[in-house]
């Protein structure tokens, strides 16, 4: 990197919030870029070393390519790894400058105007609204000793926690995208819930100050100390505008003795157009460790966006009696592709896991459930229940179920059920006869199909997600 830009980065330290627009690292991936990111984030040396270690590892490994959806080769030297939030003059001036289709969707979702502006990236001071909400919110959490902040802040203020847990569930050597993220991640959330504290509210990225543009390499770390509970919401039902095609986030969860983490995601990134042009590659690594006895981690995901979704939120059930759950809805329409599922690794005794996956394909889309249930020799008396249901709309789409089961002891039981069905014309007719148009009818039936997953979502989120399910399938039935 050019000396001059590094100088600029240093200057930056003094005017971090005011003069943010001018900084953009040049294209490409090299040690200088990583140093640049680390410096901008004012990171301590151990963090930079950690990143560099990941980077040197990255040079010796290749991208995986066993997944079903193939994608054109990504030129990693051609990407930007750091760019500051957009300046006001690059952003749309008002909602009138924003794609009307997007606005239409916001309206259907019933999103308030101020929020629409924020989501569409309109340059207004509406953000201040949410800042004040976030502040009162923060006070409440501080009272309980809960830490909820950008991970860049946690690296500075809570280095002992970050050092201890970062990379402890997803090692930097894990696989290509996880390693890439470890080298270049820009920001994300950090959560720590102290012993025996029940987090009094749903934590949502939406309320996190400075959360607006964490970029394509997000990093999240959530630690639930003994006897604590937290429910975390990621994402947002409204379609997110984003210029970056590749998203490779890492999310690590750690639950200690008797702790519980509930992690809910609604992912609705740009899926590309009807012809399959454009759209986000959502290659995310999410993994939780039930490290303590009687701990529980529950993943719920509603994946409706992105051109390609490729992720397996997983649970490592280390503690005896620990529980892992995975509830998933993956909707693919037009040319979208999803290869998603979970891994449940049973290590402790009496561990239980439950997998409920609902895949819906329409148009020319392709939807794969891929899951691994691995019950270790020592994980005596463990149980898994898996249910994978696929719903097809039309006959140009595809659904696949690929369950891998490794049960290495005879005291454990694995149950697997799978169904594939087509959307039933008679059901649609019944709904139409009651005055519902085709889209309303599809929305209703598909929501019924997904019910077991939707009801895992926190209340307000569930209502929005229900609408989203209908909207995602618009135009998919004749």
């Amino acid at each position, binding site marked *: 990197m050019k000396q001059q830009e590094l100088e600029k980065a240093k200057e930056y330290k003094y005017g971090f919030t005011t003069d943010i627009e001018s900084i953009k690292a040049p294209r490409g991936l090299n040690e200088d870029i990583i140093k640049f990111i680390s410096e901008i984030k004012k990171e301590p040396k151990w963090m930079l070393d950690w990143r560099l270690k990941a980077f040197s590892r990255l040079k010796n490994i290749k991208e995986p390519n066993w997944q079903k959806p193939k994608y054109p080769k990504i030129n990693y030297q051609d990407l930007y790894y750091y760019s500051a939030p957009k300046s006001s003059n690059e952003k749309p001036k008002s909602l009138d400058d924003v794609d009307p289709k997007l606005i239409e969707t916001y309206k259907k979702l019933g999103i308030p105007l101020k929020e629409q502006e924020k989501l569409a990236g309109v340059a207004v001071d509406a953000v201040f609204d949410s800042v004040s909400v976030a502040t009162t919110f923060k006070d409440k959490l501080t009272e309980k000793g809960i830490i909820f902040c950008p991970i860049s802040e946690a690296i500075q203020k809570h280095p002992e926690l970050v050092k201890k847990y970062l990379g402890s569930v997803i090692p930097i050597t894990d696989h290509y995208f996880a390693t890439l993220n470890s080298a270049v991640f820009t920001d994300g959330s950090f959560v720590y819930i102290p012993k025996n504290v029940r987090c009094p509210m749903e934590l949502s990225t939406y309320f996190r100050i400075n959360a607006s543009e964490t970029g394509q390499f997000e990093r999240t770390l959530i630690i639930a100390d003994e006897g604590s509970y937290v429910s975390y919401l990621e994402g947002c039902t409204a379609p997110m505008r984003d210029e970056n095609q590749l998203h490779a986030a890492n999310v690590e969860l750690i639950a200690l003795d008797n702790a519980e983490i509930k992690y809910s995601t609604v992912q609705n990134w740009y899926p590309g157009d009807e012809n399959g042009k454009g759209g986000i590659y959502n290659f995310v690594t999410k993994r939780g460790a039930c490290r303590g006895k009687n701990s529980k981690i529950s993943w719920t995901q509603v994946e409706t966006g992105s051109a390609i979704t490729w992720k397996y939120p997983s649970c490592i059930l280390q503690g005896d009696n620990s529980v892992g759950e995975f509830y998933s809805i993956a909707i693919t329409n037009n040319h979208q592709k999803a290869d998603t599922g979970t891994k449940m690794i049973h290590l402790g005794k009496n561990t239980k896991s439950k997998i409920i996956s609902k895949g819906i394909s329409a148009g020319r889309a392709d939807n794969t459930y891929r899951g691994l249930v691995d019950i270790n020799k020592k994980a005596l008396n463990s149980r898994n229940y898996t249910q994978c249901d696929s719903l097809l709309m039309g006959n140009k789409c595809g659904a696949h179920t690929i369950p891998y089961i490794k049960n290495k002891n005879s005291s454990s039981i694995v149950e697997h059920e799978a169904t594939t069905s087509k959307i*039933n*014309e*008679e*059901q649609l*007719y*019944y*709904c*139409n*006869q*009651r*005055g*519902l*148009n*085709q889209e*309303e009818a599809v929305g*209703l*039936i598909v*929501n*019924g*199909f*997904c*019910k*077991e997953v939707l009801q895992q979502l926190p209340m307000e989120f569930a209502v929005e997600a229900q609408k989203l399910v209908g909207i995602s399938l618009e135009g998919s039935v004749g």
Partner: protein
Amino acid sequence: MLEIKNLKASINNKTILKGLSLSIKPGELHAIMGPNGSGKSTLANVLSGKDGYKISGELNFKGENLKDVPVEKRAQKGIFLAFQYPLEIPGVNTNNFLKTSLNSLRKSKGEKELDSLAFLKLVKEKSSELGIDEKILSRQLNVGFSGGEKKKNEILQMKILDPNLSILDETDSGLDIDALKIIAKGVNSSRNSKKSFLVITHYQRLLDYIKPDFVHVLSDGKIVKTGCGELAEELEKTGYKKLN
């Protein structure tokens, strides 16, 4: 209200309705009787606009040609069909379904949508009027309903959606006498000078409780006889065979 002229309908290369004419005026209740396979359900389906039939002849509703009007638009114009075999829709709450349905109809008429509170009040009122246990409404739509519960649910929907023309396809079949009375009550309490009914039945029994203005006998896709209430009683005695 409804004008049918020389209606023919076929599906899968089989002609089922073979030139059927029928005229129903506002306030009238017509009964259609006929043996199994005579085309009763097909008539109901065709009137509702169900896809897949090849149709000729004329179909007018409130003076408007229904050709090319899709199912949901016909429903919005005020045609309701109580199905012979109501479908199960897993995961869909019955109340929620009904509310969505009612609000779609209201929207299409430019009326304000009902909120949950107003809707529940309406449901309570209508179900207690008919003596239907509203508990079934908090279950998944028709899933695990008994035959009687399914039919009662259809009638409750009819009451709540308040259509201009109600078509009942063998709603009485397989019901015990108490359920039958509920169905009859649902119809009788809705009858007025603006509402019309087409009640399809296989048995005369229902007509002990619902007094039709006209009775038609359908046989092999055609109306072979039309009369007033007494025709039904006659049929009960002689059977359908004599008519052919």
